[in-house]
Structure formats: structure tokens, C-alpha cells
């Protein structure tokens, strides 16, 4: 158990296959006021292992926020989202979908599956970073204790933030 090792910093999970995109997002998060720990996984299956603290991610903390790409190898983003929102222990983690798609259908599906929001990946790097910073501001601010729990693992899902 690493719970005290994580101190009060929050964890953000980025589920993103594209290396450049995930690096942009984690850099932007690193510059945000809270500078959360950022974890990156590359596909939907790995995302589940992380969220359930299994396999190579057995020590994974519970993230306060998930940034989720829709187009992922193995299990796609929609299925990850649907499974999270159907899982009582994971449902409370807000999920922001970040995708290159701006199709009406994708947007509508994602909100029906109860994503917190949908942000379109901008080709403009600065704009993309701005979007990630705004997400961090709204979903990670200290006073806005997010996702139900902070430093605990998902085995202690209800540990209140102090």
C-alpha cells in the first residue's frame, strides 16, 4: 500500500493510444495549478487493469479524473466508458472524452453513456493545452474534491479527502 506515499496530490489517468497526444495532455496537466500525478495507459484493456488495480497496475491509485480517447486498440473508448459507468466502484470517477471525432453520433453516444464532457482534440497545440487546463480547473480544483476519493486505492473507495 502506497497510500501515504501519494500525499494529497491527485491522480489523473490518461487513456490514449497516440503518444504525442498523451504527452501534450500530461504536460498541460503538469502545468496546471494542482500538478496531479499523471498516468498513461495505451488501450482499453490496460485501462481496466489500472482502474481495478490488477496485473502490472496492482498498485495503481484511484484516479480523480479520466481523460479518455475514443479510438483505442483492443477495447474502444465507448466500451471503457460504458463499463466504468456500470461499475459501482468506478462510476463516480468523472470521465472527459477527448477525441478527434466531432461527429454528432459520437458526441450524443458519449453523453448518453454519462461522460462528464466531450472535448475535441484540436490540431492547434495551444488550443488543446488550453482545453486540458480548463478541464483540470473545473474537475480537479482542491476545493472541488473530485471523484469521491483521492490518495486511496480503489480498495478504499470512500476515503474522504481531508
Amino acid at each position, binding site marked *: 500500500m502506497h497510500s501515504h506515499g501519494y500525499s494529497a496530490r491527485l491522480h489523473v489517468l490518461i487513456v490514449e493510444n497516440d503518444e504525442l497526444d498523451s504527452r501534450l495532455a500530461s504536460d498541460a496537466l503538469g502545468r496546471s495549478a494542482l500538478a496531479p500525478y499523471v498516468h498513461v495507459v495505451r488501450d482499453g484493456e490496460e485501462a481496466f487493469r489500472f482502474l481495478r488495480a490488477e496485473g502490472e497496475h496492482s498498485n495503481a491509485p484511484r484516479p480523480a479524473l479520466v481523460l479518455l480517447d475514443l479510438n483505442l486498440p483492443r477495447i474502444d473508448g465507448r466500451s471503457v466508458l460504458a463499463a466504468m459507468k456500470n461499475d459501482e466502484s468506478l462510476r463516480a470517477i468523472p470521465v472527459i472524452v477527448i477525441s478527434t471525432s466531432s461527429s454528432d453520433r459520437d458526441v450524443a453516444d458519449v453523453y448518453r453513456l454519462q461522460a462528464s464532457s466531450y472535448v475535441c482534440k484540436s490540431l*492547434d497545440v495551444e488550443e488543446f493545452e488550453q482545453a486540458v487546463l480548463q478541464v483540470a480547473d473545473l474537475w480537479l480544483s482542491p*476545493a472541488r*474534491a473530485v471523484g469521491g476519493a483521492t490518495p486511496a486505492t480503489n480498495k478504499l473507495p470512500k476515503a474522504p479527502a481531508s
Partner: protein
Amino acid sequence: MTLPALRIANRALKVLLVEDSATDAANLAAGLVLDDNRVDLRLATTASHALRILRRAGWGLSDDLPDLVVIDLVLPDGSGREVLDFMKQDARLRHIPVTVLSVVDDAHVVRRCYDGFASAYLVKPVDPDGLVALAEQLRSFWLNRALLPARDSAPDVLGTLQVLLIEDNDLDARLVAEMVRDLDALRGDGRRLRLTWAESMDEAFRLLGDRTFDAVVLDLHLGRSVGMESLEILRRRAPGVPVVVLSGTLEPEASRRSLQLGAQDFLAKDDLSGSAIARAVLHAVERRQSERLVRLSERMASIGRLVSGVAHEINNPLSSILHLSEDLLLDSRSAEDVEALELIRDQAIRSGTIIRRLLSFARGSDLQRAPVALGRLLMSTERLVANQVELLGVKLSIEFPPVDISLSIDETSIEQVLVNLILNGAQAAGAGGTVTLSSATDRGQCDLVVSDNGPGIADSILPSIFDPFFTTKAVGQGTGLGLAVSLGIAQQHGGELLAMNRPASEGTGARVTLRLPCIA
């Protein structure tokens, strides 16, 4: 890959704010709503108020379906959680993101809200500036960064009949809404019914004051104003709108009485279906229209007879005045006399012009119809008015049709109508204003639409503007015949002339449509 277009960019973001504190609501509104009209904010001060708005929107009974809901957790009559839960259990509402805003900073409460599928949980800053800043952040994110689901296709398309349903029973209202929704289109001509629901007569009158409805469906057994009373009030206060009465059962006496009081139709709830409602509404609207046309043409005929009689009587003395003043001008006279005589002559000419117009209006002078290309008509009209419009300091914008069509018209008189409409519009718009002439062709009809961005036509005079001699201009500025003559010309072409104000969403101004049948 192209840069994604943010869906929200083209229209206002509709936000429903559920907040009981007036101070907090004002601060939130200050951050959410700037004067660019990009956020359309609706405030509910209690949970039940919010539920009412949402229930109605969810049933398709209003246009109020929000894009984003911001809820205070602690409300006077319950918890914001109830609103959240209600939304997430309703198939038509559950896709709408809900941001919870609360002073409660407790991880368990936060967790429970996220478990209930809140989009975000924000702790309310205690200082007012902090609250405004937070609202600005929300605005910026949801307007500029987030993509939201597209809304259903625009409800207010041409051919939609706006129907006001006055019904105090939730379930009955819902039943009617579902029946009507199941109707694809009416009679295959593409017309649709769009219902707006009013729970009480008071609410109905507020709605009737705000916008135009094609028909009213009235439940006879409304809580406070029972039975015929509500129908009588409605007929008195909104005499122009056809009414279809709903009643619990088919009571012959109630039915007879309703029709006597001016209802257009009577439906029993026992025996209700979407198509029955639609049929009754359509018939009511059409009957109303034809009654109005008959009344109008009777009135026109009598005015016509009167006018041509008077015109002939006046024509003779008038020509004497004209000729004699011209004779007198031939002799050498003092400057003062010349000025006076010229004025007499000019006024006689002016009066003669009015008489000629009156006669042509009363007689319905003969038309020389020939096929004319729409593009050419628009161009020649532009040539005719460009100078005068420019003198008024008004911009004239003519939208040429993408595909040219042919109209069978008397070109000169239709030009006269368009010139008349454009000049009216330009005068209403005033210096710095804009008048637009555009066209739309649909199902064998061609609409030539003149809109301006002036103050619009006051509701009180809207019914009179086509009457001969009706004018809003100062004495001597206009004859009050322009629109009446224009209407006559439109009718001689088998067409219509329709005047209305532009929908509030497009800003102020009048829109007059010359509708003509077109030939292939």
C-alpha cells in the same frame, strides 16, 4: 482532417440554473451571460420549478430543453439531487450534463453526486467575485471547449402549426403530447403540430401574449376556471385564435355550448388519438382562415364600390382645378402668386394620382401576364428603388435565387408592389438600417420576402395594415393605399400578401411576403 466546428458556435447555449439564492443567481448570471447573447439562461428557484421545466421539455412540450443544467444542491423544497436523479432516469433528459454547485464540501456528498451521474461537482466559492469567476469558467468551457449533442432539427420550420395546449392534468398533457409526437406529418403535406403546454389560463395568456399560436387546444375542466368560463375568457382575450375543446366525455350539451361560444371543434378525451387532434386543429385553422378571407373580400367589395363612386365624383372638380391653375400660370404674375399657383397645381396632380390608384384598386385593373424570370424581376426592382433607398440612408440587400424560375405575372404591377414594400421597409428601418429582398420557392409557390430591421409592426395595427387609407405616416406623407393596392395586385395574381414581424430570435423588424404561384 478538418478543424472541428464547435457545435455550439452557431446558437445560444441554453443553461438552466437551479438556484434559490437571489444573490448567488445574480452572480452566476453575471459570469454566465455576457451581452453577446451566446448564453440563454433560464432560472428556476425551487426543485419543483426545475422539475416542471424539465418535465415539459422532456415531453417535447416546449423548446426549453437545456444544453447544460447547473444545480444548487440545497433548495427550499428539496435537494438538487432529486432534479439530478429525475434527469438521469428520463431517456430524453439523461444526456444533458448536470453541474452540481454547492457550499457543501464533503467527499461523501461529492461522491454520491458523481454516483448519480453528475457531470461535475463544484464547491461554491464564498466570495461573490469567486462565484462570478467560476461562472465565467463554466461559460468559457462549455461554450468554447466542450462539444455538446446536436439539438433536434429546428422545430420552427415553415409549415409547423404552433398549438397551445391548455391542460392542468400532467398525465393528460403527456398523453396528448405523445399522440401528437407519434404523428409523422399531417396528411402528407409535411405540416407538423408543435405543442406548447400551459398548465393554467394565466400561463396560457402569458404565452399568447408572447408569441403567435395557430390554434389552442383547451381542456374544459381546468381546476380554477371550470368549464365554459375558461372558453369564454379565452374567446374574449384571444379572439383571433381558433379553439379546439377537449372534454372528459362526449357530452352533447357541452359540445353544443362550446361551438356556440365560438370553439371550432369539440373532442372527447375517451376517444382521443393523435390524428383526431391533428384533424381538428387543421380544420379549425383552415375554417378560421377561410372565414377571414370571406370577411375580407366582402369588405373589399363594398369599399371598392364606395371608392369608385367617390373617385368619379372628385375627378371632375379636380381636373378643373388642375387646368385652371395651369392656365393662370401662363400669365405673368408676382413670384408669390406663381408659388401659390404651382402649389395648387402640384397638389391637384397629387390628388389625381391618388384617385387613379383608387380606381385601379377598386376596379382591379387588367393585368398583362407574361412569363418573367425571377432573377430579372429582382434586378429590375433593384434598379427602380436603388436611388430612393440610398437617399434614405438605408442599405438594400437583394438575395438572388440559386436557381432561377419563371413567374407568370404582370411585371410592372409586381414591380410596383415590390418597390412599395421596399420603400415602406426602408422608411421603417430609417437611416443606417437594412432592407432585404429574398425569395423562396416551395411547392409551386414563390415567396418574395421583404424584411427590414426597423421597429416592426405594432400588434395593435397588424390587422389593419392592408385596409385602404390606413396609414401610420404623418398626414400628407402617405395615402394609405400602398399596401391595399399591393394586396389587390397580389390577389389578382392568385397570390397573397402576408405581413408579420420577424421572429424575436432574428431581431426586430417587419417581414412582408408576396406569395405568388409559379409556373414550371
